[in-house]
Each structure stands twice: as C-alpha cells, then as structure tokens.
C-alpha cells in the first residue's frame, strides 16, 4: 500500500484546492493516470499517480484546501487486494472490486436523490448537516460549482499566475545573492545540424534550436552537479536533472513546467516533451508532474531583439540559464573575421551555493558541447 499525498507543484506552493476526483475507491489505475484536478495559483492542474494499483478511500473532499503532503488516498497493489479477499474467506469468489472499505454516506434522502439525478459522487461532498450529514444545500453547492467551475475563484487565472510569479521572484531577489556570467556561442554548427535533421523529419517532428540547447545544458549539469540543486538549509544536490522551462502565456504571466530527466532524453524526445508541455501550459491544462521537481530553470527570449538575459533564479533552485536571440554578428575564428549566427548564453547563479568559478566551468563546458551537436 502506498500513501498518495498532495504533491508539491513547485517549491512555492503550500496548498491547493481539490476541485475534482477523477477516480473512485476501487478503480484500477496505472502509473501516469490522472486521478484528480486541483486548483493552484497556476490554474487547474491534473494530478497523476506514480504507481499502478487500486484506489482506496478518497480522504479529501471536493473544494477542501489541501496542504502539500496531506494524505489524499491510498493505492493498493493487486497482490494486497487479493490477499485481503483470501483472508476474508471468499478465496474463490472472483471479485470485480477489491475488498476496500467503502463509506456509507450520511446524507439526507433528498440529497441522495439530487446527487443521483445530477450524477454527483457523494463521497466528494462535504456534509454540513447534523452530525456531518450531507444536505440538499451541500449537493446543490457542488452542482453549481460543476456547472460554473470558475464561479468559485474571485481572481482570474491571469491574476493568480501574476501573484504566484510576484511571490516567487520577490523571494528570490530578497534571499538569493545572484551572480551573473555571460558567454557567446557560434551557433552555425548547431543550426546546420538542425537544418539537416529537419530535412529528414516530418513537419510534426521538426526540431527548434531550443531542443539541442536544453540537451546541452542537461549534459553540462551532469558534470557540474552543484548547479543542479536546491538551497534548503544548505546545498542539496538533486539526482535527477529536471529542467524547468519558462513558457510565457499569450495573456501575460509565465509558467515553468519541467522536462524530467532531460539528460537521459534524446534531442527529439526533448522536442516532443516541449511540444506536449507547451500546449498544455497554453491551454492551462497542466499535470502535476509538469510542475514538480524542477532542479534548474532555462529561459529563452529568442524571438525578439534581446541578446542577453539576466535571469532571476526560481527558489529554491540555485541557477538559471538564459538564452537571448540568435543574431548574425562579426566573429573571429582562427585569426579570420567572419559573420556567424551568435547566441548569448547567460547564467544567473546563487552565490551561497556556488562561486563564479563553478559558473565559468559550466558555461565553458556548455559552449564546447554545442560545437558538436551531432553528439548531443
């Protein structure tokens, strides 16, 4: 049996409102299945499970404010359920549903009737009647919320996201002593390689320059683990390299979904992941895994006139890598002056966690990796 707790969807999240259960007790789930929707400042997030199994009692009710770490349900393995069935002496009776305690709802007959008519799961309704009984009013409330889900939030999604960014960035500038480094990279190798790759790829699988850049950052972090870390009571290096990628919303604000284990993904897989998460971000249909466990952040302002970005670290991370636009610039190479597509790479790092030398090593390594894009 595994306890399923409210995940942390970003280090700045303290709690979320449960808006919908997508499963009921006894449902069989697979790793990656979405079992609930919660509302955070970043909007409605789909919550996924990380284990196969069978859902136990739902321990949190709709619209409850759920602090990070709160037990939401338990996931039983098939073996556990089978053993339970045997123990209860019904060994040979094939059971469709596992032997999990199902709650008898204390609800008024009227509440039950309305819930049945409207298809409301009473286990998700919080009772306010005598001894916690569910009344018509309690069910009506859920009906209203389901028909107008936004009616409950007084703030718009945009305002909430703005507030979340404001809080995280204020904390960063208040607490993190940033240092900034910058370097220039000749991108002709990468761009040529991309052009060749894209000729062989279908429209849907085409790569953007950001894909090899992310892969290169991930590879460099394998060598420089001090930048792939959190600062929480001292430096805590993280084993997985989960790159948070800043996605700006067309309506304003940013969301930073994670590309998990970027060092282990191919450039093509990174592009695929980016396509998935960016479309989920833009439609504000995020999953819990999109938002959890980032160990470093990458921001790219490649589409405008900006050459260099001086980033603000997303706490409790200790570094942020930034890309400006790729522009044609004079470039000296082997004593010859030429024109090359040049990218400015910036690094903002937490001086509590690392020193300029660490950052220098990282950027140098990154620059070298980008010289051989075919090896990424």
């Amino acid at each position, binding site marked *: 049996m595994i306890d399923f707790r409210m995940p942390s969807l970003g280090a700045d999240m303290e709690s979320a409102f449960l808006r919908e259960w997508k499963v009921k007790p006894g449902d069989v789930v697979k790793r990656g299945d979405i079992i609930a929707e919660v509302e955070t400042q970043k909007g409605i997030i789909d919550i996924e499970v990380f284990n196969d199994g069978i859902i136990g009692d739902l321990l949190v009710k709709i619209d409850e404010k759920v602090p990070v770490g709160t037990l939401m349900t338990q996931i039983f393995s098939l073996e556990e359920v089978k053993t339970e069935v045997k123990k209860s002496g019904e060994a040979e009776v094939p059971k469709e549903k596992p032997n999990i305690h199902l709650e008898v709802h204390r609800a*008024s*007959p*009227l*509440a*039950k*009737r309305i819930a049945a008519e409207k298809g409301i799961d009473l286990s998700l309704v919080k009772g*306010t*009647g*005598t001894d916690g*009984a569910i*009344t*018509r*009013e309690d069910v009506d409330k859920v009906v209203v919320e389901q028909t107008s889900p936004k009616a409950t939030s007084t703030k718009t999604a945009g305002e909430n996201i703005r507030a979340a960014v404001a809080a995280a960035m204020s904390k960063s500038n208040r607490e993190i002593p940033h240092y900034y480094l910058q370097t220039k990279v000749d991108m002709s190798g990468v761009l040529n390689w991309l052009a060749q790759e894209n000729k062989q790829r279908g429209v849907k699988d085409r790569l953007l320059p950001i894909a090899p850049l992310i892969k290169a950052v991930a590879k460099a972090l394998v060598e420089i683990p001090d930048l792939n870390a959190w600062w929480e009571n001292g430096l805590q290096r993280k084993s997985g390299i989960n790159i948070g990628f800043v996605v700006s919303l067309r309506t304003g604000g940013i969301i930073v979904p994670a590309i998990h284990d970027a060092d282990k993904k191919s450039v093509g897989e990174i592009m695929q992941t980016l396509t998935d998460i960016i479309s989920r971000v833009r439609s504000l249909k995020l999953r819990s895994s999109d938002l959890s466990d980032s160990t470093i952040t990458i921001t790219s302002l490649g589409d405008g006139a900006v050459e260099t970005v001086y980033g603000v670290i997303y706490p409790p991370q200790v570094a942020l890598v930034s890309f400006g636009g790729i522009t044609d610039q004079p470039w000296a190479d082997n004593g010859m002056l030429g024109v090359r597509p040049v990218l400015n790479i910036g690094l903002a790092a937490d001086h509590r966690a690392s020193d300029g030398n660490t950052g220098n090593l990282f950027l140098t390594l990154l620059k070298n990796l980008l010289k051989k894009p075919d090896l990424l």
Partner: protein
Amino acid sequence: MSAPSVSIKLSYREALKQSLRDALKNDDRVFLMGEDVGRYGGAFAVSKGLLQEFGADRIMDVPLSESGFVGAGIGAALNGMRPIVEIMTVNFSLLAFDQIANNAATLLHMSGGQLNVPVVIRMSCGIGRQLAAQHSHSWEPLFAHIPGLKVLSIGTHEDARLMLLTALKEPDPVIIFEYTAMLNLEGEVPTDTISVDSIYAKVRRTGKDISIITYGAGVYKSLAAAAELAQIGVEAEVIDLRVLRPLDEKTIVASVTKTHRALLVEDACQSISVSSEVSARIMEKCFYELDAPVLRLCGVEVPIPYPKHLEDACIPQKEQIVTVAKKIVCHD
C-alpha cells in the same frame, strides 16, 4: 372557502357558544345534552344562557353517567336527530368509550350501511389549568385510532366559531376536541358563518424552510415560534391538522415536498401519538423529499404533575419549537 371578509374579536369560549347557538337556530333536530350544560351553564360556561334561549327540550342536563347519556345521544342520532353530546372533559370520556368505539363507530358497518350515526361529541381536553394527572389528559390519539370516527381538533378561534357547524353536516359520528386552557383567550373570528368548508388540514402560515405540523393547543404556540423564526430568516410553514382522523395526507405531503423538513408538535405524549402517524406517513409518501430527519416535540411521558412550572415543562413550548426548528434548518 373564501376568506372571511370581516372579523371580530371574541374569546374562544364565546366563539364556541356562538357556534352552538347557530347550530341550534339552523336546525330543529339539533339539541345539546351533557352534564350541567343547562341550569349551570356548562362546567366551563360555554352554554351559559342557552337554556333560557332554547328551552329544556334542546338544552338537556343529564345524570353523571357518561355511558348512559352518550348511548342516549347515539340512539337519538339513529332516530333522525342531530344531537350534540358534551362530555365535560376528555378525562371522563373513557366511561363512554364503549359506546363511542363499539356503537357509534361501528354501527354503519354492522348494519351493512343502513344505519348512520350523525352524533357530534364535544369534549374539552388538555392541560394548563393545574388540574393534575387525572384531569389533564391529551387523549386525541386514543380516538384518532378508531376507524368509523371523524376526529376534529379546535386549535383556533376561527374553528371554535365554525367547526361545529361543519361537523353537524357529517352523516357519521364526529368527536370534537376543545381546549380548556384556551377558553379565555381572545382572538379574531369571522362574522361570515355561511360559508363553512369541508374540513381539511389548513396552512396557517406559509413558509419554505420547514413544516411545523401541529394541532389543538400547539397551533398558536407554533405560530408564535414561526414569527420568532422569521426574525432570524427561517421561514416556517405552520400546518394545523384540524382533522386527526382521517389524516389529510395531501396537505402534509405537499408542504413537506416544498420545505423538505418537518417538525411535529403536539401536547399528547410522544409514544403512539398523532405525530407518530404523521411521521410515518411522511416516510411512506415523501421520504425522498426529506433533507433532514423528521423530529417530534410532544408531551413528556409522565402523568401530568400539579405544579404550574412542571405542567409547563410537560408540553412543548414556543422556545423549544424555535430551538428544534433552528436545529433542523440551520444545524445548530
């Protein structure tokens, strides 16, 4: 029935007397018989002056023999008269219970539909005058139990003025309960006595949050409670059952279907009471409309004590009705 357009203020006692007078005037077959109803003017002065007005043939004093004179009333009814028999109080009615339950209630059935018994038996009832255990019974449920009877309860001045006239139109035996404690209470009664409706339960106050279902002495207390509840935003509907047998299920169900909550109030003690039956009917007919358990406020299950404060504590009072209604509606 159209709402009475003009009303005057009368005591409950005076309203009862006026209805008796109307009944005697309207129909020569009507006469009143009972202990001390004539020369003494009635144990509670309800028939005071009627002997002088209508004469000894129609206002008839009888010996202290409930079984005998109720039987005589039944006999008169069988022979075409329209007797109004007064049993001084419900406390003495058990002496006549055999006549009521075994004769009045059954003869239509026993005669294969040939013999109607159009007798009206009035009795005063209830507690509130410090008459102690033997003289303070609320035995409406005993009579409401018996098939063949129609059982009415006069909880308002309007009904004190009108209900007897309707009862006299019934072809079968009718028991009317009047409430001793209310005799001196003044209230509005309609001056228009022509339009007398057939009797059903009556919504005395409309509301949407809870149905307070009551009768007799509970009606005014429930109305007072409803007025207080209104001040905290709880709109209680008050239903005066009026007919305890046969129960007006339709009105009850319609009200509970609207309010989804019910509180039943009566002076009779709780076990096997009218409220027991009303509660069961609600479960049977509109269970799926209920948003809270049906609760009852009834008489305490003790012989009624003599001291005033203990007497008061034995039956539901306005404050309790408010408290319990609030608990049902607001859960606190």
